[in-house]
């Protein structure tokens, strides 16, 4: 399993990376949306899912998803947003764009999040567009 993590908080990015490694998951760590797109563009094998934070340095998670969905190759990659801010607006707009899940960081242990990701990938949950 390969995962793209886009998270601009370095501490968090580091520990997420460590955890995923421990779980034997291949991980691409991007600390900005730009980095994330670079990975997507350059990697031969696309990640199985994207772990996306909402508040990024350069653009918002929303814009990232919008941009992502524009590219045919990337549009089908399941996205799970793990963020610490979530107004309903944000959640709904994300979900409307086809984000598969929206989790609040502080409420979940890493382990739980990874479980969610697994479920996402293995169960092959369809994009729930609203």
């Amino acid at each position, binding site marked *: 399993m390969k995962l793209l993590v886009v998270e601009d*908080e370095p*501490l*968090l990015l580091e*520990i*997420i990376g*460590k*955890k995923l490694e*421990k779980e034997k998951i291949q991980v691409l760590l991007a600390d900005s949306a730009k980095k994330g797109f670079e990975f997507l563009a350059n990697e031969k094998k696309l990640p199985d899912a994207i772990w996306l934070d909402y*508040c990024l340095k350069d653009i918002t998670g929303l814009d990232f998803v919008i941009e992502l969905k524009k590219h045919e190759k990337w549009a089908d990659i399941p996205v799970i947003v793990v*963020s*610490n*801010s*979530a*107004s*309903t*607006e944000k*959640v709904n707009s994300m979900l409307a764009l086809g984000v598969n899940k929206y989790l*609040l*960081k*502080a*409420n979940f*242990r*890493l*382990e739980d999040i990874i479980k969610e990701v697994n479920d996402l990938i293995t169960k092959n949950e369809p994009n729930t567009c609203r």
Partner: protein
Amino acid sequence: MIKKFSFFKFYFFLFFGFIIIIFGAIITFIIAQNTRKNITTNLLYFSESVSAAINPQRVKTLTASSLDDNNPDNIRINQQLQKVQTYLQTQGIRWSYLVFQKDNQFLFSASSITPDDPGYSKPGDIYKDPPQELQKVFQDQQSIISQPYQDEWGKFVSAFIPIKDFSTGELLAVIGFDIDYQYLQFQINRQIIFPIISTIFIFIFYIIIFFLISRQLNQTKALEESEERFRLAVDAAIDPVIMMNQEGNITLWNKAAEKTYGYSQKEALGHSLHHLILPPKKYNVDQSVNLKNFKQTGQSPIFGKILELETTNKAGKIIPIELSVALIKTKNEISAFGIIRDISIRRRHEKLLIQKNNILKEEKLKTEALLSGIGDGVLAIDQNFKITYANHIAEKLLGWTSKELIGKDVYDNITVKDGTNKTIAKGKRALSLAVKSGKTISSSTINPVYYVRKDKSKFPVAITASPINSDGKFSGAIDVFRDITHEIEVDKMKNEFISLASHQLRTPLSAIKWYSEMLLEGDAGKLDTEQTKFIDNINLSNQRMIDLVNTLLNISRIESGRIIIESNPTDLKELISTVIYEFESKIKEKKQKIIVNINPNLKKINCDPKLIFEVYKNLISNAIKYSPKEGEIQIFVSSDKDNVISQITDNGYGIPKKDQTKVFTKFYRGENILKIETEGTGLGLYLIKSIIESSGGKIWFKSEENKGTTFWFSLPLKGVNSKKGEVSINS
């Protein structure tokens, strides 16, 4: 008298006419009789005179037979009689003749009648049908005038004169003088023509006079009646009606005038009007000049006009009046005819009205001052939705002056837009909704509407629109509004702050959480017991912080009305089970017993599962926290007619009586448990109370210290309406 006259007029007429005729008849009769008398008296005189001329000696020789034919005495008497006859003729005497009575028979003898006259009788002819007077003369031997009689020669009136012997007085014969009755009649008639005609003329004259008088009297009567009618009308008038002649004296003073001014007719008539009701000191100059003019010229500037004057009555009281004066000209004189209207009542009413008006004005000013004192914009509209009032704040906010707004249609002049700059339709505006529903409508501050100013700029408003009903009828509405730009800003700032704060707070908390997690999993090396314990403690505290941040966020969102309620059919049993599952380890640790008793027939209820989950979580967690080891917690869920009631009972520390009123306040934690259980933010009950009440339910409890606590909460069976907010819980 006139009345009687008109009634008896006919009889009167007849009577006097009759009298005249009778009178005339009597006169005529008298004259007739007189004439007759004269004639008969004349007859007598002449007859006696003539008979005196007849010598009785001659008469003695007569025999009243054919022997007399040659008797010279006979002849002589004949001659005498004939000679006299010409004169007698003028007196109407037709003939005269001697009559002898022999053996009860009357025999003719000498006469004035000549044999060629048809009335001729030979001496010795029998007078066959003599009048009785003839008989009487022979008996009484006195002269007699007979009544009219008829004999074979015609109708006569005769004088019979006895001829007596001079010496013996023996009646020898009677001489008769006949007047033709026709002659008599003629003479009479001649005399009575005059009186008859006179009578007729008099009678005609009488009729004429009668007629004229009658007409005159009728006219007088008509006039009197008309006057009477006029008087009655004038007296019946409610208003004083007066007339003044050219001298300024009162000639008409009706009952109403008596009543109003206190002067009786007697006291008023003939007196100066001005002195009576217009006291000199007030109207000195003007009126006397007018009066003088009127006296001289019969003109006055007040004719045909209505004046307002102040008059005085007998008692000296001032009576304000309206006087209308007309000029009346009759053949002989000029009068001023006036109708007076006492306007003292009107004046009083006018004063009252002015007073009332002033009071109203004052109140209006007060109200306006009050309204100006309101810190919000106030617009008032009438039943036709025309603006009747705009306070100065409304003016300021809208950019229009009060003058520009008043009278204008509120919908046409004040545009309302929504957040997307779309104009809101008339029917959807707060004012229309308030008027239609009859209730006060407040607009939302979360999704506000915008008023458009005069300069076309717009600003967000919070509107409270209320309809005004007077007597149950819609008579207008009031729109109180305020500019919430600042409020929205503040709200936005607050939300942004909260969002930011929550994010900023949570980020380090997440880091601590995850790093602790990794440590505990041994990712940085194996940990000994103590190290594990320490990190556990770090984790616990961190979790508390996370919970606190979440709760604070939720509370602030609930308070600003931004929580969503996403209502779905929810199985409460499931919620409870999940909660219990979450707390399994804790329950096991404290060796507590949970008993769950849910009505098996309980249907799913429409509510927000996330929110209600929080409620159960809070209550059950409290029950666990505030019960000692081996405590017992019971959970019941049942329903009555309208609600589902959930009950959570513990036999723990309870809530001290003196704190029971503060239970639902923010940050409350019972004194008794503070020492025992340090965990707890004191926000839980406050939060779930807000949730339950937003869901249309109620929460209540009973508790006794060291005995236990029971909490109940209800949710309406008919379900909770989804509520659109902006955030959901814990986001």
